[in-house]
C-alpha cells in the first residue's frame, strides 16, 4: 500500500456501530459486576502505579467495554497488581482479576 508521508488519522469518536463489541460482551458476561462501576475514580486515585504514571484502570476498562481494545494491553502492563484498588472499590469489583483477564484476553487478541 502506498504512503505519502502521512497516514489516515483514526477518528477520535468511539464508534459503537463499527467497534467489535463481541469481546466486550463476552467480558461483561463473565464479569457482570463491571457494569456496576459508577466511575467514582477511587481505583485510579488510590492506584500505586497511577502515583507514578498515567495509568487509569477506570479508563481502560471503560474503553474496553466500549469496544476500544487497541493499546489497552500495553496500558495494563503498568499495573503492579498490588490490590489497593480492589480494597477501595465501593462497588466490590474484583479489579485485580479484571486486570489479569483483560491482559490475557487482549494480548491473545492482538497476536
Amino acid at each position: 500500500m502506498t504512503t505519502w508521508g502521512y497516514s489516515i488519522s483514526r477518528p477520535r469518536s468511539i464508534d459503537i456501530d463499527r467497534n467489535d463489541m463481541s469481546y466486550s460482551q463476552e467480558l461483561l458476561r463473565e464479569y457482570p459486576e463491571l457494569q456496576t462501576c459508577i466511575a467514582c475514580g477511587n481505583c485510579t486515585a488510590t492506584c500505586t502505579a497511577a502515583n507514578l504514571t498515567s495509568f487509569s484502570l477506570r479508563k481502560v476498562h471503560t474503553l474496553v467495554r466500549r469496544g476500544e481494545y487497541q493499546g489497552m494491553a500495553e496500558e495494563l502492563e503498568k499495573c503492579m497488581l498490588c490490590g489497593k484498588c480492589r480494597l477501595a472499590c465501593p462497588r466490590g469489583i474484583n479489579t485485580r482479576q479484571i486486570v489479569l483477564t483483560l491482559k490475557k484476553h487482549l494480548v491473545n487478541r492482538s497476536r
Partner: protein
Amino acid sequence: MTGRVIIIGGGVAGMQTAITLDELGFKPVIIEKEASLGGKLCRWDRLFPTMTPAQEVLGDLLKRVEKTASEVRTSTTVSEIEEQGRGVTLSDGSRLDAEAVVVASGFDIFPAERKEEYGYGLYDNVYTTVDVERMFREGGVRMADGREPKTVAFLHCVGSRDEKVNQRHCSRVCCITGVKQAIEVKQQIPGAEIFSFYMDMRMFGPGYEELYRQAQQQYNIHFVRGRISEASPTIDHRIHIKAEDTLIGRPLRMSVDMLILAVGMQAGSSNVAFGRNNNIDLYPSGFLRPLNQFSGNVRSSSPRLFYAGTVTAPKNIGESINEGIAAAYQVAQTLNAAKS
C-alpha cells in the same frame, strides 16, 4: 379498649404520629431512648433547601406534642415488640400493652471511623456533616486550632453506595446536605474555596436542584466528579487528599484545611432486635421492609404494627412527617374497625 398506641421513637415521625393520633382520639405513648424528644433533628442547625432553622420545625412539633394527652417516656428503650402488636417489652423487662404499635425508631448515622482511609477521628480537621451542623449551632465552622478554614473539601457518599462497609443503598439526603453546608460555609467565610467531590448529585426534592445551581453559580463551589480515595495529614496539619478527576481522567491531589465527610444513613441498630418479631421483615440493608412499597408504606404484615419515617428507608423531614400522619390514620382505621 384502652386506646393506647405505643410509638417507638420520638423523632419527627414519632412526634407527628402522636399528634395526629391524639387528634383522632387515641392515647399515644412515645418511647424515646434519648433524654429528650426530637431525634436527630436536635443536632441540626438549618434545614435544606430553605435554610429554615431546625429549631423552628422542632419547636413547633414539641409544642404540639405537649398540648396532646400523649404520654412521653424518655430514656427508655424497647427490647422487643410483641408478635401481634399488642404490646412491647421495655429494656428494664417490664411489659407495656397497647392496641397498636408504631415503629418510628429512625436511622443511625454512619460511623465515619469505619472508612479508615479518610482519617476521621485520627487527623485533626476531618469532620462529618453532623459535626458541621454542631459547629454551626455553636457559632460557625472552625478548624481544630480555632481558625476559619480557607479551603474546604466535601466528600459525598461516605457510608452510602459502598459495598466495603455493607451500605449498598443511597442515603438520598446527603447530596443536598452537602450542598447546603457548602453554601453555609461560603456564607460564613466568603473567601473560602470549597470543593465538593461527588459521584452523582441526586437532587430529588423540590428546590434541591435550584439550591445546587445556586451553589455553583452564586457561591462558586467547585464540584469535582470523583471519590476521594484517601486522606493524609500534611506537615502543617492540613489534609492532603487524593482523587481522580474522572471527567478529565487524571489523578487529582490537593491540600485542604478541612475535609468534611457527608455521612449517610444506616439502618437503626435496634432494627435487628425488632426483626425477631415474625411480622417485621428487614431489607438486606437492615431497614424495615413495609408491607408494600407502593400502597402499604406504613404497614407491616401484622394489622396492628405500623411504621413511620426513616425506620423503613432514608427520607427527608417532610416525608417522615407525612408518614407519621399516614401511620396515625392507618392505626385509627384499624382500631375503629375492630371497635365496631
